C-alpha cells in the first residue's frame, strides 16, 4: 500500500518538503543537545521536566482520544464511524510516535534508553508507561494496516484482528491512566497529588483527540475526494462537547478542594497558575486564555445551532484543542514544579532550541500522519470507485 504515498500533487509534495525541512532544522539542534547536553534547554534544577514532557503528556492524550471512535464503531456497531475509525487509529499511531520521540529527546543519556527493559523495575511507573505506550502503538499499527488492507482487497479483515481491537480499548485508557500515575503518585508534588488526575487527563484527552480529528476531517474533505461524512462529525462533536465539560468540571472540583481546604502545599501551585505566587505570574495569562477557550468552546458545542454550524465547528474545535494544550501542556507540568518542594520559585519558559526540537518532533508526527491519512483516504476512494 505504501506506493500510494509516493504519488501526489504538487501541494502534497510541498507539504512533505516543508515538514522535512522542519525535521532537518530540529535534527541539527538536536545534535547540539546530544553533544552538549540538556543545557540548551531552559529546564533547571527546580523545573526538571519542561516542554518535551509537557507535549509528551498532551500527545498521549491525543493518542488515547482515538478510542472515542473505536468504541462506538467496534463495540456498538455505530456504522457512521465506519469511514473515520481508521483515521482515529492512524492519529493514535502518529501521536504515539511523537510521544516516544519526546521521551527520546528528553533523556540525558539516550544511548542507554534500553536500560529500562534490561533492568525492569516493576515499582517504577515509567517502566509500565513504556510498555503500554509501545504496546498501544504496535496494536494500532497492526490493526489499522490490516483493516485498511482488507478494505482495499474488499475482503473481511482477518479474524485475529478482532481480539486485538478489543484489547486496544483498555490499552487506550491504560496509556493515559499510567501517564497520569507518573505524576499523581509522587508524595512531594501537591499539584499532581490528586486521585482525579487520571480521570481529568482522560477527559481532556477525549476532548482534544476527537476535536483534532474533526479538524482533520475538514482538511481531508477539502484536499481529497474522500468525504468522512457530516453525521460522523456531528457525533464526534457531541463527544468533544461532553468530554470538555467533564474536563472543566474535574478542574472545578480540583479548584474547590484546593481553595476550600486551604492546604498550602496544594494551594501554592494553583495560586501560581491562576493568580501568581510571590510576584511570579508568567503562566497566569496563559492559564486564563486556556480556561476561556475551553469554556467558550464548551458553550458553542452545547448550543445545537452553533454546534451544527459547519463553518464554525472547526474553529470551536481548534479553541478546545488549544485550550486543552495550554491546560495540560503548559500548566500541568510547569505548575507541578512551581513552587519547588522547598517553596522556592523558579519559573520556566522553553528556550528557542527547545522549541525548534519540539516543532521537529511535531513535524515528524505530521509526516507520518500525512502519509497514513493519504493511504487511508486513497484506499477508501478506490474502493468506492
Amino acid at each position, binding site marked *: 500500500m505504501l506506493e500510494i504515498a509516493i504519488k501526489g500533487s504538487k501541494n502534497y509534495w510541498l507539504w512533505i518538503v516543508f515538514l522535512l525541512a522542519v525535521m532537518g532544522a530540529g535534527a541539527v539542534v538536536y545534535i547540539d543537545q546530544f553533544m552538549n547536553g540538556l543545557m540548551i534547554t531552559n529546564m533547571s534544577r527546580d523545573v526538571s521536566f519542561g516542554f518535551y514532557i509537557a507535549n509528551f503528556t498532551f500527545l498521549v492524550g491525543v493518542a488515547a482520544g482515538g478510542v472515542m471512535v473505536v468504541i462506538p464503531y467496534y463495540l456498538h456497531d455505530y456504522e457512521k464511524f465506519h469511514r473515520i475509525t481508521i483515521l482515529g487509529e492512524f492519529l493514535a499511531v502518529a501521536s504515539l510516535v511523537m510521544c516516544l520521540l519526546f521521551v527520546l529527546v528528553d533523556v540525558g543519556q539516550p544511548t542507554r534508553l534500553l536500560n*529500562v527493559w534490561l533492568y525492569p523495575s516493576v515499582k*517504577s511507573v*515509567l517502566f509500565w508507561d513504556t510498555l503500554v505506550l509501545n504496546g498501544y502503538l504496535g496494536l494500532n499499527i497492526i490493526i489499522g494496516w490490516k483493516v485498511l488492507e482488507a478494505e482495499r482487497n474488499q475482503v473481511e479483515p482477518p479474524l485475529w484482528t478482532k481480539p486485538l481491537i478489543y484489547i486496544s480499548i483498555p490499552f487506550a485508557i491504560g496509556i493515559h491512566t499510567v501517564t497520569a500515575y507518573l505524576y499523581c503518585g509522587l508524595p512531594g508534588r501537591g499539584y499532581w497529588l490528586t486521585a482525579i488526575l487520571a480521570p481529568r487527563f482522560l477527559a481532556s484527552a477525549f476532548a482534544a483527540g476527537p476535536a483534532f480529528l474533526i479538524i482533520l476531517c475538514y482538511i481531508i474533505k477539502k484536499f481529497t475526494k474522500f468525504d468522512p461524512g457530516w453525521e460522523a462529525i456531528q457525533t464526534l462533536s457531541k463527544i468533544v462537547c461532553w468530554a470538555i465539560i467533564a474536563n472543566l468540571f474535574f478542574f472545578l472540583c480540583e479548584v474547590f478542594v484546593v481553595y476550600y481546604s486551604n492546604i*498550602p502545599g496544594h494551594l501554592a501551585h494553583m495560586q501560581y497558575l491562576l493568580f501568581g505566587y510571590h510576584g511570579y505570574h508568567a503562566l497566569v495569562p496563559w492559564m486564563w486564555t486556556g480556561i476561556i477557550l475551553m469554556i467558550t468552546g464548551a458553550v458553542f458545542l452545547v448550543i445545537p445551532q452553533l454546534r451544527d454550524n459547519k463553518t464554525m465547528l472547526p474553529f470551536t474545535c481548534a479553541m478546545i484543542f488549544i485550550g486543552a494544550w495550554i491546560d495540560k501542556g503548559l500548566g500541568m507540568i510547569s505548575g507541578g514544579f512551581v513552587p519547588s518542594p*522547598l517553596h522556592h520559585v523558579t519559573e520556566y519558559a522553553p528556550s528557542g532550541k527547545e522549541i525548534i526540537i519540539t516543532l521537529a518532533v511535531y513535524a515528524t508526527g505530521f509526516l507520518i500522519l500525512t502519509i497514513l491519512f493519504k493511504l487511508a483516504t486513497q484506499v477508501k476512494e478506490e474502493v468506492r470507485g
Partner: protein
Amino acid sequence: MMKKSRRSFLKVAGIAAIGLGAAPAMNFAASGSNGTALAVKSKNENVLFAHRWGMVIDTNKITDEVVENIVAACHKAHNVPDFNHKVDEEKFPGTRPVNHKQEVKWIWEEHFQYAFPDKEDEFLAEKFHDLPFLVTCNHCKNAPCVKACPTQATFKREDGIVLMDFHRCIGCRFCMAACPYGARSFNFRDPRPFVEEINPDFPTRSKGVVEKCNLCAERLAKGEQPHCVEASEGAILVGDLEDPESEVRALLNENYTIRRKQSLGTEPSVYYVM
C-alpha cells in the same frame, strides 16, 4: 525437499552463529581454575557497617562558617561542579556561559521556612529565622526516588544508603520529580570545566545523569567518617539508627529533633536537633 534442507541448514547456521558470538562471554563466566569463578569479592576489612545509616545535625552548633566548611569539603571531595568557578579557557576552550538555575549541589544551606516549608510559622522564634539549616539527601527509608527510577540506577543499599549508579542512569529525571526534598541535581552539561581541582579518588560525572549526596559511601567503605562529619566541628553525627547503643540514638534520645516533611511517610534518616 530442497527447500526444507535449506531451511534446516539456515537454522543450524544461525544457532552456530549465536554460539560463536556468545562463546567469549560464556567462556569467561565458566572459566575454571584461573578464571573468575573462584574469585572472591569482599568488603574492606575496616569497613564501617550499620543496619541503617542516619545523620543527626545539631542546629545549635551550626554557624555560617561551619556551613561553609562542610559544603566546601563535600563538594571538593566529590568533584561537584561550581558554576561560579572561572573556566580555564586553555583546557576547556569555547565553554558556553552557565545557567545558574542548572547548578549541582549535594549539601547546602537553606533558611528554616525553606528547609521546613510545612512548619512555616508567622510567630516563629526570632533565632530560627536567620539560622542556617543544612539540607541534603535524607536517605529515606521509603525513598520515593528509588521507586520512581525505571532502571534501578537509584537503589537502596542494605545499610539504608540511597545510592546512584551513574553507569546505569538514563537521565530521565523522574527521581527529581519524585524527591520531596529537592535533593537531586541533574548534569545539564559536562561538569568538568567547573571543577576547580579534580579529586582523582572520586569520579566526576558525565553530562546527562542525576546525582546527589551518597553519604560518603566511598569513605565508610574505608572505615572513615563522611566529609561533612569531619568538617562539622561536632555539629553532625553519622551512625546506626537501628542500633540502640549508637551515639546517634543517644542524641535522639536526649534531644527534641525534627525531620523534613515527616507527614509524607518517606521516613527521612536525617534528624535536626532543635
